[in-house]
């Protein structure tokens, strides 16, 4: 593994010797990665390589699975997420997450976006309305839904639902947005919209995205990590990974020889 950091930029996560077991299964093996601020980091690899597990570890969502054992270090804002008994509420407010399938709550469009901020204590009605509007504008959904904010969110199309979920995650004002294959259930047009969105989001947020789609990684990410069998095989600037990979296995994967 080689990291050519040409420009020194601020780190948001620093992952050192991370190991993770699901019961007897050794799912993540000695992961070392540095995730830079205001960059899009893509995680690619075949199914079952641990890429989803890895992003779920970054906000400790992985702990909701029974029998998980983690060792190592994930430094976030100067604290090790793994050893420190941390306030998960605070952590997950700062690290938003978007899932494979759009999963809006069975409530109105407005309530979906307002859900996080309201529960985290925002009471002022005007502020909530402004925040909802801003979040929906950030994901370019505002114009499509501004006249029907009270309608059930489940009435939206799949792509709209996924953008709504991104807006919902943004409404708690996170620093980082974790995305676990956010476009795998969407049509090409919706996918393109979300990709455009991700490129814009990195101005304000740090994005870590798991993707099955290598073209997607190439299009939107600054750095790419290739995972295989729970290990990071290669982590480098996206251009390098796709043009001149160092490892034979990376080359095989991106040229479609397996996976």
């Amino acid at each position, binding site marked *: 593994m080689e990291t050519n950091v040409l420009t020194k930029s601020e780190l948001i996560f620093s992952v050192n010797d991370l190991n993770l077991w699901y019961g007897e299964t050794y799912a993540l093996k000695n992961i070392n990665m540095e995730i830079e601020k205001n960059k899009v980091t893509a995680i690619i690899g075949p199914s079952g390589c641990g890429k989803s597990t890895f992003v779920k570890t970054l906000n400790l969502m992985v702990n909701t699975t029974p029998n998980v054992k983690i060792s190592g270090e994930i430094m976030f804002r100067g604290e090790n997420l793994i050893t420190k008994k941390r306030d998960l509420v605070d952590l997950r407010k700062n690290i938003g997450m978007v*899932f494979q399938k759009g999963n809006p*709550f069975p409530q109105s469009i407005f309530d979906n976006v307002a859900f996080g901020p309201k529960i985290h204590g925002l009471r002022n009605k005007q502020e909530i309305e402004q925040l909802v509007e801003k979040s929906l504008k950030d994901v370019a959904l505002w114009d499509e839904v501004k006249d029907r904010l009270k309608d059930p969110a489940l009435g939206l199309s799949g792509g709209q639902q996924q953008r709504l979920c991104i807006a919902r995650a943004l409404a708690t004002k996170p620093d980082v947005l974790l995305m676990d294959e956010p476009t795998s259930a969407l049509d090409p047009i919706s996918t393109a919209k979300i990709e455009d969105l991700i490129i814009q989001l990195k101005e304000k947020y740090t994005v870590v995205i798991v993707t099955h789609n290598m073209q997607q990684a190439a299009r939107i990410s600054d750095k790419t990590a290739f995972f295989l069998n729970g290990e990071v095989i290669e982590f480098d600037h996206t251009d390098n990974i796709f043009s001149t990979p160092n490892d034979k296995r990376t080359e095989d994967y991106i040229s479609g020889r397996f996976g």
Partner: protein
Amino acid sequence: MNRKIADRIATITFVGLSMIIVAILLYLFAYIIMNGFSKISWDFLTSPSSNILAGSGIRDQLFNSFYILILTLIISVPLGVLGGIYMAQYAKPGKLTNFIRSCIEMLSSLPSIVIGMFGLLVFVNTTGWGYTIFGGALTIAIFNIPVMVRTCEDAIRSVPRELKEASLALGITQWHTVKTVLLPSAFPGILTGVILSAGRIFGEAAALLYTAGLSTPRLDYTNWNPFADNSPLNIFRPAETLAVHIWSINTQGLIPDVTEKAAGASAVLVISVLIFNLLARWIGSMYYKKMTATK
């Protein structure tokens, strides 16, 4: 060819079996309603019953049935929902949880007459209340709570995992997630369970024989003081319910028109239960449509 025949036979068997179930149900309904419907009249529903005279009604029994139903639901729904939340969200898989689950299943499958005997010992004798509505409601709650726990657990478990994840990932605590995401989504299932078990409570007789009793004091429906002996709202008075009434006039009734009264009361009972069932389906699907925006 052989496989095709086997497939045919399987299809015919399953269709046949379900037809038998439908036929039994229809026959039962038709029989009870044809015999009893003509006996139902405003007078029948609003005049008190009598042990010896003809032309009596079921006013008090009908009221008692609804009153016990409501009391039982007030006791068993909150406990059942809390138990269901615990079993679905908090209980860690393991020996203790399995043990609790077995207890719940066993309790819900005990014969109601046995629970009635237990009610007699505890809520009638030990407490010294005698036959009371409250004792009856507590007794029915004993086997209704496990049913509610089970229903709520299933309803909460059937909420998609993604919804729970979405909420937790927003930094929302488990209790808040249960309260604001899981319970509202599980609501149609819980409601259906409540209304269906309401039908069971409404028709329950065995557990009430020895707990709520076979008689009703002379009631004055204008007396709303729940502590007065002749108030219908008094929960410490004996109360014969509709189902118990049907049993008692059939086995020990002295009224000359016993067959007619029993048929009429049965029809009222069956129609009420039918309404509960239809209501459960209707409200459940209404809520579901509203929630998911499906047409």
